[in-house]
């Protein structure tokens, strides 16, 4: 079952879930709440990519994502007024400004989804990984890709995605404990 705006607010008030900072009333729709873009981005280091041209990554047990990330990307902060211009076909990692907490016992999982106003421009906010498991805590990383033909300026603080909360049928035996637990910007 998907939580409506009223249920999301009740769950927040009862501290069964947490979104910090607390979203303003205008950020809700009937069955979702919008999250906003943080100023921290992770962009590709094209000098490094050029140096290692031809290298092939092999996802699997020996693959270490943090090493990959640190080798091929760099962290930058976007100036609030200026924003970040995402060119056509460009792909960057970004964060939601808000951090969320879905305690295991609350029986809540969530999905991060795009917003139609941005989707019409060609902007995708995740690459087939929308699930936020029960037990997750932290900031949400966005996989931003501009599939459109025109550059898009992304400004910190803009509503960037929506969060849809779903109640699980039972209490999971074990909440999320993967490598992205308590991930920080």
């Amino acid at each position, binding site marked *: 079952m998907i939580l409506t*705006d009223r249920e999301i607010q009740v769950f927040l008030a009862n501290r069964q879930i947490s979104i910090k900072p607390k979203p303003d*009333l*205008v*950020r*809700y*729709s*009937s069955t979702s709440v*919008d999250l906003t873009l943080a100023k921290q981005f992770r962009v590709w280091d094209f000098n490094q990519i050029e140096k290692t041209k031809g290298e092939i990554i092999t996802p699997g047990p020996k693959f270490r994502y943090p090493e990959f990330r640190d080798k091929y990307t760099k962290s930058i902060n976007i100036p609030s007024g200026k924003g970040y211009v995402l060119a056509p076909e460009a792909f960057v990692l970004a964060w939601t400004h808000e951090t969320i907490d879905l305690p295991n016992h609350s029986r809540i999982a969530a999905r991060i989804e795009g*917003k*139609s*106003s*941005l989707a019409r421009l060609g902007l995708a906010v995740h690459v087939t990984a929308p699930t936020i498991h029960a037990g997750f805590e932290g900031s949400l990383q966005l996989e931003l890709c501009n599939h459109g033909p025109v550059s898009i300026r992304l400004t910190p603080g*803009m*509503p960037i995605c929506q969060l849809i909360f779903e109640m699980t049928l039972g209490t999971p035996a074990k909440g999320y404990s993967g490598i992205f637990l308590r991930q920080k910007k």
Partner: protein
Amino acid sequence: MNRVKARIVRGSIRSERIAYITTAGGGHAEVLLSASQTGSNHVLAVEVARDKNNVLIELPQETSSGDWRVWVNKNQILSE
């Protein structure tokens, strides 16, 4: 369901309308709607909350700037 005052413009296809709603802050919310969700001078929206002078409405579609809900002055509400 409320009728909220708006400037309505024809869209790119016969069934499409573009509505411009004056927000409480003095700006304009632009939203693409089907003709059935609008009249000649209004859009249909649901009241979500109210304070002394303003009403928070939920629109039938997301605005161009990404909001489903906008604050409007209570004078913008034509009927409930």
